């Protein structure tokens, strides 16, 4: 390949991180090649999920208006399951969907969204080459200078790894080792088709409004939880588990997920629907601690899931927005560095701070320890349901005092007041 074919940047992966990066670079007149192994952008990608719009706004004002999005989330819900029982908290905030401003978040499906975003990057002038898998990085004199796909060698000033959680690029660049099982969750999801009206009736939604629901207490005590997002004409129902604990539990993640689906409080929400897809994906679970130690070397940057940018607070999960922001950060770093490619890495770290990505990840670090508390996945939802059970039970007998009810339920679940106080202190301290 001759030197005229050299790109300013090669981006591996046309997910939100890669496309946001390509969009920003191409908009600034840079010569960008995005290489995507899937037939179309997004066809290898999975989300819960939802997208927070601030990130799209950062990419370009009002871009969200034409984006391939599902429903604007105005119902934030938490569900605690225990046996057949369930407590559902529904926080309805129409203010999350303000007039004349972008709604705060939308539910989203990745096959459509990623394809749309990659097309936007193409409109700006980026080349998106699909159906090509990068096999190897090209290294010369200690620098990454290009990528090899099959017989083709492609060169660039910088290679940007946007190839997701199993980043083979970052591994080849020597920046990450094998992924420790403790740091990831395995997510599985069914997309269940239902008529628009049915979804709106079941979730008490106005047209175009959506619900995002986290499920706790549905994982048989395994570190993890479920999720449910209402799309335009489907429901995304899934769950995420720590695979190590699932293996120790000796029950297939598929089986546990089917149990959740058939739970008496879940099944009616999807009744009459038809499953149109079953997907699975790994997700980084370690938050700030899961960010890889070094996100660059000369001629090479890592963005999105490849870098470890995911926040799980237990009641909300963020990844796509962080991917987009990191893509923008990388693009700005490359633009600032100009001919001084060696400086791009440190500029990237500056941009990640400047765009508040790193501080945001750091601020959410405390959730990690709370989510490490093993009994929050079974005993706490049981306790909550036991207390509600006592509150609402009328049998003609003299009811127990509230204090005795709660203390009794705690004892029955093997929890002490001290444990709960400690969790509360941990919570207050870290959040």
């Amino acid at each position, binding site marked *: 390949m001759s030197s005229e074919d050299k790109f300013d940047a090669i981006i591996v992966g046309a997910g939100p991180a890669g496309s946001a990066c390509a969009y920003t670079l191409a908009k600034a007149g840079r010569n960008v090649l995005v290489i995507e*192994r899937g037939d179309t952008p997004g066809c290898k*990608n999975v989300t819960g999920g939802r997208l927070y719009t601030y990130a799209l706004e950062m990419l370009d004002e009002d871009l969200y208006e034409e984006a391939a999005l599902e429903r604007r989330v105005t119902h934030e819900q938490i569900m605690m399951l225990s046996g057949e029982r369930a407590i559902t908290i529904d926080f309805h905030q129409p203010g999350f969907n303000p007039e004349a401003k972008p709604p705060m978040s939308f539910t989203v499906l990745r096959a459509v969204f990623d394809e749309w975003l990659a097309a936007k990057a193409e409109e700006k002038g980026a080349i998106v080459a699909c159906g090509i898998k990068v096999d190897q990085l090209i290294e010369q004199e200690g620098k990454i200078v290009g990528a090899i796909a099959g017989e083709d060698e492609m060169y660039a000033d910088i290679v940007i790894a946007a190839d997701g959680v*199993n980043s083979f690029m970052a591994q080849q660049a020597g920046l990450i080792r094998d992924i420790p099982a403790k740091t990831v969750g395995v997510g599985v999801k069914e997309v269940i088709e239902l008529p628009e009206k049915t979804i709106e009736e079941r979730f008490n939604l106005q047209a175009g409004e959506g619900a995002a629901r986290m499920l706790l207490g549905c994982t048989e005590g395994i570190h993890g939880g479920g999720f449910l997002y209402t799309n335009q004409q489907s429901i995304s129902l899934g769950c995420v588990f720590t695979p190590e604990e699932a*293996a120790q539990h000796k029950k297939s993640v598929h089986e546990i997920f089917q149990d959740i689906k058939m739970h008496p409080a879940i099944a009616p929400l999807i009744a*009459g629907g038809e499953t*149109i897809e079953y997907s699975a994906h790994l997700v980084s679970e370690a938050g700030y601690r899961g960010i890889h130690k070094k996100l660059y070397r000369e001629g090479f940057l890592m963005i999105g899931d490849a870098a470890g940018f995911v926040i799980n607070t237990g009641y909300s999960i963020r990844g796509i927005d962080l991917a987009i922001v990191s893509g923008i950060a990388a693009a700005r770093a490359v633009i600032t560095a100009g001919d001084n490619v060696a400086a791009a890495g440190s500029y990237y770290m500056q941009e990640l701070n400047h765009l508040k990505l790193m501080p945001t990840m750091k601020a959410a670090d405390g959730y990690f320890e709370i989510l490490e508390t093993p009994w929050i996945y079974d005993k706490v939802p049981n306790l909550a349901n036991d207390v509600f059970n006592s509150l609402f039970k009328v049998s003609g007998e003299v009811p127990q005092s509230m204090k005795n009810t709660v203390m009794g339920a705690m004892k029955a679940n093997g929890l002490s007041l001290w444990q709960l106080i400690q969790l509360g202190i941990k919570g207050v301290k870290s959040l």
Partner: protein
Amino acid sequence: MSIERLSAVELLSKNKFNVDEEEAHIVIDKTICAQCSEKPCLYVCPAVLYKLNKNGEMSFDYAGCLECGTCRVMCKDKGIVKWIYPRGTFGVIYRQG
């Protein structure tokens, strides 16, 4: 179309795949798997593609792979001797995601 429990096979039949008949992207060494006492892959593969056959030997079919990477992360004794993504255009094709 009422909601029911679906087997992994039934779930996978909902998906679109372009199976690479020429090249397996995941290869296991059954003799290594035979030494592995935990066999986490039996439980953590969302597509339930790792199974023990009648002789208690590990069997694996890459055709329904969802490319999540969980088995790669969990394989303790490294019976998975090869794990790469399928060649370009091959493998699962999510239409929802």
